[in-house]
């Protein structure tokens, strides 16, 4: 669960007009269709057993049949991921906001943030079960532990990126700390915050599902996957995986969309 360090080029992905989007969207789509087709063909030709690798068409049709339940389970998993992200992200952002002016404090916390990003946080999941019980509480805690250091690091780098002259300008206006934070540091931090969020939403979803593997309710994607896998219901497992992928992708796209809207003034977003 390592994450790339944020850099000053955070959020450097350029928006493109639709005509140029086509060139980016169509080839991957063709690859996707070809891969699914090949998968279907391989299962057919080599007569692979259903429990080992079901056909994509079979997964698709069960996905449609079970859509209502999958959405319900997905919502529960999303709830855990979301609440964990809210808590962990909140703690990470708040710590960065409190300490960014005090070098020794920020560095002191930064070391542990780096450690937490380097260790496989998911190995803590059984421990959080001991601390917070088998249900949602422990899973939210694990997601928080996984996401807090990401948002701490990105927010810290962002807050510190504020232009030196602009900081002096605020000083010349005798602006208070809170005012300077709100009017200057926060806008500078936003591109980094969004870069961090794009990583954190994905991590939150992964950690939530894996936490659910360790026990608790079956009424969520992780629990469902655990249960169906135990019964070698491979097609059902696949439908939950597809749902998890769809939720992960849509979360990422929502964050990216908000990012693009909020930061339309930013050099990386405004094009020409």
């Amino acid at each position, binding site marked *: 669960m390592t994450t790339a360090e944020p850099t000053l080029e955070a959020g450097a992905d350029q928006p493109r007009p639709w005509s140029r989007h086509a060139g980016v969207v169509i080839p991957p789509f063709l690859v996707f269709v070809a891969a699914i087709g090949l998968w279907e063909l391989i299962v057919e030709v080599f007569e692979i057993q259903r429990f080992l690798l079901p056909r994509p068409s079979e997964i698709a049709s069960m996905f449609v049949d079970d859509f209502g339940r999958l959405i319900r389970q997905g919502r529960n998993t999303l709830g855990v991921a979301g609440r964990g992200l809210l808590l962990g992200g909140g703690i990470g952002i708040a710590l960065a906001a409190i300490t960014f002016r005090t070098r020794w404090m920020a560095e002191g916390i930064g070391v542990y943030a780096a450690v937490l990003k380097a260790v496989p946080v998911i190995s803590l999941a059984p421990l959080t079960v001991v601390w917070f019980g088998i249900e949602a509480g422990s899973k939210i805690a694990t997601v928080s532990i996984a996401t807090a250091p990401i948002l701490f690091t990105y927010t810290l780098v962002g807050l510190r990126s504020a232009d030196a002259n602009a900081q002096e*300008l605020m000083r010349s*206006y005798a602006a208070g700390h809170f005012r300077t934070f709100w009017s200057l540091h926060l806008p500078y931090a936003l591109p980094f915050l969004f870069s961090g969020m794009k990583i954190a939403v994905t991590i939150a979803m992964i950690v939530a599902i894996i936490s659910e593997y360790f026990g608790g309710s079956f009424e969520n994607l992780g629990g469902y996957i655990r249960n169906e896998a135990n019964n070698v219901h491979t097609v059902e497992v696949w439908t939950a995986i597809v749902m998890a992928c769809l939720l992960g992708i849509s979360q990422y796209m929502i964050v990216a969309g908000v990012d693009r809207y909020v930061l339309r*003034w930013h050099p990386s977003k405004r094009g020409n």
Partner: protein
Amino acid sequence: MTTPNTSSETVSADAQTAIAFQGIRKEFGNGANSTLAIESVDLDIKEREFVSLIGPSGCGKSTLLRLAADLIEPSGGSVLVNGKTPRQARLDRDYGFIFQSPTLFDWRTVRKNIALPLEIMKIGGMTRADRDEEIERLLEMVGLDGFESHHPYQLSGGMQQRVSLARALVFRPSILLMDEPFGALDEITRDRMNLELHRIWEETNTTILFVTHSIPEAVLLSGRVVVMTARPGRVQEIIPIDLPYPRTTEVEESTHYYELVTQVRESLGQAMAGGP
């Protein structure tokens, strides 16, 4: 506040002192690695005066400006701004500071950039309508009417610096501290900005302390040009500029203008050679 200066005599001998530097010494770093940037600088700038600081790079002219702005503190000597400590003057919002880079907030429109100091200072008795009117007046003064809804990145460098100027003037500080404000602009834009700055100085009652690398710019704009020596910075010579007001293109073409430019250049040459 619109009485124009008709001659240099407007700055009378008994005018109040806006900025007083006394025995200023400034050292950066400490111990063996310290650099003496400025040594024993005495300089008085009168109210409504336009004074330029010129000197070789690293002579501490920007440092003087930053001392007056309370962005840094002197290692020795004292600075008084409007008779107060620089810190008190800063808290009282006595001065506006203009950097070489426009230092605009990209996420704010031109109008909201100019409004920034007013938002922060919450000037008593100023309604939203007053504020809008004030911004309107400044947009016109710096020649930016029609651009209030633009974002900084949609403007040229010269226009961005106009926004920066308007933002510094919007809260009507009595002093403008300008750190090579036009240094990054091309020659043509710079000439135009100089004349406009001079017009604005005449329209408003501000005192301007102006740091520049450009001899013609210093002569054209100033009532006095302060030539500084190479590091550690000292005052080499203070040259009064007795050119007629208003300073226009005609003034720039006069013989006396060229004589003064030559005088400043020679003084600067001596300063770089290591004192008189």
